């Protein structure tokens, strides 16, 4: 039936977890595109062959199928962009390689452009260096937070100028603003009280 393939694409996206991006399904997209081309060719064929009594319903059906295919394809790539955008806020400008290999060339380009746009916007806030909006995402309850180091990360210079050596499995009290980026990078883990 018409449009089956594109629905399959969308289902594939929906089945995956929301904070992940499944591999870019190039084959699937090409199949949908070629279905659209076939349908278009069929319409043109109808128009050419029958001059007087056009099979209007058949043409309408094919047109609707093409429009639906198009709409669903757009949804597919738009949803992927939304997830990619979330990752920029969660992980930062450098994507892990397992995410990166799931993206299409154009998506990587989009991501780089998005990073640029975002960074140049953040630079304009305030007078000098700008403001990093990806920090302070949760209302602060306390100034310090208890964290556990997941790896031997080595030296960490604190805001006060002291140097702390992060060892695997040891716990520290760090200021939230300093701990937050490290938690996001997976170096530290927050200890729940």
């Amino acid at each position, binding site marked *: 039936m018409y449009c089956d393939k594109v629905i399959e694409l969308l289902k594939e996206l929906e089945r995956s977890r929301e904070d992940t991006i499944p591999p870019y399904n190039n084959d699937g*997209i090409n199949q949908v*595109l070629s279905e*659209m*081309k076939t349908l*278009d060719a069929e319409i043109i064929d109808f128009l050419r062959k029958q001059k007087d009594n056009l099979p209007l319903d058949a043409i309408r059906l094919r047109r609707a199928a*093409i*429009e639906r295919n*198009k*709409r669903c*394809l*757009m949804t597919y*790539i*738009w949803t992927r*962009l939304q997830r990619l*955008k979330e990752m920029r806020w969660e992980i930062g400008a450098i994507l892990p390689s397992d995410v990166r290999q799931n993206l*299409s060339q*154009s*998506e990587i*380009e*989009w991501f780089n*452009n*998005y990073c*640029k*746009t*975002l960074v*140049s*916007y953040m630079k*304009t*806030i*305030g*007078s000098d260096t700008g*403001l*990093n*909006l990806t*920090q*302070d*995402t*949760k*209302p*602060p309850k*306390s*100034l310090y937070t208890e964290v556990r180091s997941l790896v031997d990360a080595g030296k960490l210079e604190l805001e*006060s100028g002291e140097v702390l050596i992060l060892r695997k499995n040891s716990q520290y009290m760090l200021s*939230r*603003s300093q701990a937050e980026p490290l938690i996001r990078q997976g170096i530290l883990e927050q200890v729940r009280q």
Partner: protein
Amino acid sequence: MDIDIRELIDDEDDENQEEMTAQKVLQNVERAWLNEKFSPEILPHQTDYVECLLEQIKGMEGNLAKLSKTDPKVDLHKLELERIKFVITSYLRTRLKKIESFCVSVLEEEATRSEEDKYLSPAELQFAKEFALNADNHFDTILRHMPQLYNKLDRNKKIIEPNLNSFVFLKCNKHIDSVIIKNTLEGQEEEIVLEDNSQHLMPYSSVAEFVKNGTVQLI
């Protein structure tokens, strides 16, 4: 003698108008933040207040650095600063999220507004334009493979508009004589009076103008 006193008072008033206290600026930003958080559409930007508050924060951080580290007050002040920073970043983030999701409609509406009452700050406008262009370029990589009649994305299909009829909680700061609520189902209109300090739940579209001029606070 009388005149002298009056002059003194007048002078004080003038100063108050020119210089806002840090407290007042913070209040304004907090109000803007709440409004922005709860309103479905993007509101006029308050960049001036935000910039001003950021300056204040920088000053306060400088002062804190001078105090001794063992002083218990330092940590309290720092926590307060963190809270203020959260309000600012959350405010700007909310605006960015709205710009991103309603990109096309935000840009279109912005183009119809005059220079004085732009809703977006220049930096935000730049962001919106670049975002829209970037998304269009990406869409185009797929669209250009489609059959000829269909390889454009028309405006109506691409646009996402905020739902202005969504319900909001609000608190009234001033007495408002008439607010018109449209009942879209029955096609009727209803007019109500908002008392000073009263709280209501109603469609956003009815109070949009009052939110923008500050007579109503979304909560």
